[in-house]
């Protein structure tokens, strides 16, 4: 979708039309809806001349286009001595492609040369938002009108005020060189009252002997000779491919216009010949009913004399014709031998950029150069003005302190001679590797067997090493060890070992717990027995049985034994008892056995005498480790 609105200085004098209101309303709605997305675009600026050469008195158009913002103040008045520069208005454009909205403002100027010479139109600065945009410097070469050989060809069918349409083919030169880009403009105008229903969006330029592209239409409203026209402009650029005369055109532009079925049935012609708004309104074909009519607008033919390029072109000439400048830079600035350095060369200007090849290097010795990549960014509609950027990767084979200068040759059609641009050498620092060799590689190979004096002078291997005849026992795998099943399977070994260790430790803790419970029970029993031995309430049989049991428990607790396995000897040994204590222990156990098995312990005595009880208690207390 493309919406264009004109804002010519004379526009407010055009008659008020109903349809114009409708168009303006639609455009305003579209502007309001799309203003948000348009404002987000990165602003940029271009400035283009319709021709970089002209004759005295021959007008040249200057367009300054600002993209990305519509609220742009016009540039300050452009003043160049020898040129008369007038603003012819501004034009706003909104374009939507793939839902991407772009807006632009174009400031149009007409330049009328007053004298011959080379004029420079200085850069214009326009503030957009918080940025200052700067146009490129433009050069305009003006030749004397008396002897100019490349003046403009303007093949016009009619820009006649009496006619309601016109078509013209504008070719700015009558002679050119092979390969030189020639901008071509076809303009078709319809008076504002004419309703155009259909007009081709693209045109083909008839003729042979030149390269051509489809011409795309752009639309604007202009005032010519006091009348307002809807002007459709088709632009392209051609390049002659052979010498001799070539013919361009005539260009035929088919169009469909709406013609009212009948006119002025109700309102007669204004006898005073004045523009009456009501008259225009009621004669509007949209209201009165109209029929489409096909018309064909035809321009005249234009001839161009094509000259061959001069012989003896420099070897660095690749066919570029026009006017160019070149800048170059390289990055990184500090590398090791063999590392890549990207050298960027920007060739800007006006000409046949399709023939602009990457610049060559003045001295490539010691460098390895890779094919460059190219990117072209055009500044105009037809691709004859812009910047072509070449990125060349260089790899130093030895130590270097600068990248050699780059050379670019083109043919200047104005000066009619070949021009070679030479960039400055770019300082870099290349380290490592061998020092720069004065001898060729073959000579280095001969001296390679000499003993090396330093690591930097170590000779390089000249041929690959021998074949190997051994194969390993088993095929190898590219799969990393950690990604193989065998690796994870092997982890089962430490995993099982860990689980075994943990299980063993848990079981050991469990067993320790059971032993503690057993000791607790024995301790409890020993305490109870000791308490009962102090009491005088048991028969001798029962008392001595308890006393021997108390000795067994005490011994078992001290030596971690089973109490049932403890006898007098074991108890005496456990406590390292002396002979007396050992005898008393033996006596205690014998007494216990005696009263338990023979029943002789009673003898009518019902209780143990206090002396005997104290003796037993002393014996048990005396058992200490």
């Amino acid at each position, binding site marked *: 979708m493309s919406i264009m609105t004109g804002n010519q200085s004379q526009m407010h004098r055009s008659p008020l039309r109903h349809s114009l209101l409708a168009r303006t309303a639609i455009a305003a709605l579209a502007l309001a809806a799309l203003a948000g997305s348009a404002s987000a675009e990165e602003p940029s600026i271009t400035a283009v001349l319709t021709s970089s050469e002209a004759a005295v008195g021959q007008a040249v158009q200057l367009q300054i286009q600002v993209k990305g913002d519509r609220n742009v103040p016009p540039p300050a008045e452009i003043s160049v001595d020898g040129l008369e520069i007038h603003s012819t208005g501004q034009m706003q454009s909104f374009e939507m492609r793939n839902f991407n909205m772009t807006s632009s403002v174009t400031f149009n100027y007409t330049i009328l040369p007053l004298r011959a010479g080379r004029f420079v139109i200085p850069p214009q600065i326009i503030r957009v938002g918080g940025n200052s945009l700067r146009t490129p410097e433009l050069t305009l070469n003006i030749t004397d009108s008396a002897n100019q050989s490349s003046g403009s060809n303007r093949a016009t069918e009619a820009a006649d005020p009496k006619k309601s349409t016109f078509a013209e083919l504008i070719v700015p030169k009558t002679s050119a060189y092979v390969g030189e880009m020639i901008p071509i403009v076809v303009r078709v105008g319809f008076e504002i009252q004419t309703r155009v229903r259909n007009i081709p969006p693209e045109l083909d330029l008839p003729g042979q002997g030149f390269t051509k592209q489809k011409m795309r239409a752009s639309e604007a409203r202009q005032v010519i000779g006091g009348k307002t026209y809807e002007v459709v402009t088709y632009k392209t650029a051609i390049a002659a491919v052979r010498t001799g005369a070539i013919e361009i055109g005539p260009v035929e532009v088919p169009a469909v216009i709406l013609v009212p079925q009948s006119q002025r049935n109700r309102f007669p012609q204004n006898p005073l010949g004045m523009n009456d708004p009501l008259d225009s309104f009621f004669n509007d074909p949209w209201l009165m009913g109209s029929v489409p009519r096909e018309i064909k607008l035809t321009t005249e033919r234009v001839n161009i004399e094509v000259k061959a390029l001069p012989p003896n072109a420099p070897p660095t000439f690749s066919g570029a014709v026009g006017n160019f400048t070149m800048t170059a830079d390289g990055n990184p600035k500090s590398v090791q031998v063999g590392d890549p350095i990207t050298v960027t060369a920007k060739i800007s200007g006006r000409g046949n950029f399709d023939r602009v090849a990457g610049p060559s290097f003045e001295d490539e010795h010691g460098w390895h150069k890779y094919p460059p990549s190219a990117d072209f960014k055009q500044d105009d509609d037809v691709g004859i003005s812009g910047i072509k950027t070449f990125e060349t990767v260089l790899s130093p084979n030895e130590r270097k302190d600068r990248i050699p200068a780059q050379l670019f040759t083109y043919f200047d059609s104005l000066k009619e001679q070949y021009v070679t641009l030479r960039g400055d050498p770019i300082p870099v620092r290349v380290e490592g590797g061998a020092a720069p060799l004065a001898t060729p590689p073959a000579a280095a190979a001969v001296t390679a067997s000499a003993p090396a004096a330093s690591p930097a002078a170590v000779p390089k291997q000249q041929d690959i090493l021998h074949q190997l005849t051994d*194969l390993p026992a088993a095929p190898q795998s590219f799969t990393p060890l950690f990604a193989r099943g065998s690796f994870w399977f092997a982890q089962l070994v430490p995993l099982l070992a860990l689980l075994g260790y943990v299980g063993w430790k848990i079981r050991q803790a469990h067993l320790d717990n059971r032993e503690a419970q057993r000791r607790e029970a024995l301790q409890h029993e020993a305490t109870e027995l000791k308490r009962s031995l102090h009491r005088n309430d048991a028969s001798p049989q029962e008392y001595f049985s308890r006393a021997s049991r108390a000795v067994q428990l005490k011994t078992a607790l001290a030596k971690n034994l089973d109490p049932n396995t403890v006898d007098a000897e074991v108890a005496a040994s456990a406590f390292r008892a002396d002979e007396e204590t050992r005898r008393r222990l033996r006596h205690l156990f014998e007494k216990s056995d005696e009263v338990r098995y023979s029943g002789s312990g009673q003898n009518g005595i019902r209780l143990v005498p206090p002396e005997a009880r104290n003796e037993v208690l002393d014996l048990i207390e005396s058992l200490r480790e």
Partner: protein
Amino acid sequence: MKERTNLFWVSVTLITLGCATASSARGDQNPAFAKANQDYSEGHFQEAVNGYQKLVGAGQWSANLFYDLGNAWFRLGNFGEAILNYERALALDPHHPEAAANLALVRDEARALELRRTALDRYVEAGTSTQYSIAASIAFWAALFGAARLFFSHRRSAALLSLIIFSTVVFAGSVFALYSLETGGKSGALAIVTGKDIQARLATADNASSVLALPPGSEIKVLSQRGDWLYAALPNDLRGWIPANAAQRVRM
């Protein structure tokens, strides 16, 4: 006595079987490999390439096989394939001295571009994936056993705590090194340009703008694939699309 005699014969049988297996797996006994080597030595390099590739197709992968195949491709003047097979030999055996020497020579000859490596990459590449895997495994289990011992012991041992911390650090470092290896310049995404006159482009079209000219043998890192095109990280920190049939991954 009888048991000792049986044990002796079992041992003899096992040793004999082991030696026989090892001997039969040696390359000098592999007739196809020997034939390819003979073709190479007689100057029949294309036949040698065919012979080596048959072994590769049969899965008999080894560093020496890829090294020999790289040599044969070099003799045929195909630097891209030669560099690819030297890289494969080094992927299988990172300390293969002959492959490393020949790779350096052929790269120099072919002017092949290499992916830029950071200082960290160079440090990490001092070890191999296998070494880092084993180190990580040992450190992991040492840390776990130490932790279990610490859990069941009644007193805190400084030596045990030191062992656990050291093992954990070694484990983390090994895992990080493995991750760096698997995502860095020597990862499974590493591929070698084997086609000639290859241009990396901005889009998947032959007429798209060129990003970088890639001589045969240049390294790229494949980021994704779309149809017949690979999106790859290029030397000099650029990215672009190249035809899928113009490059081969190092790891098969």
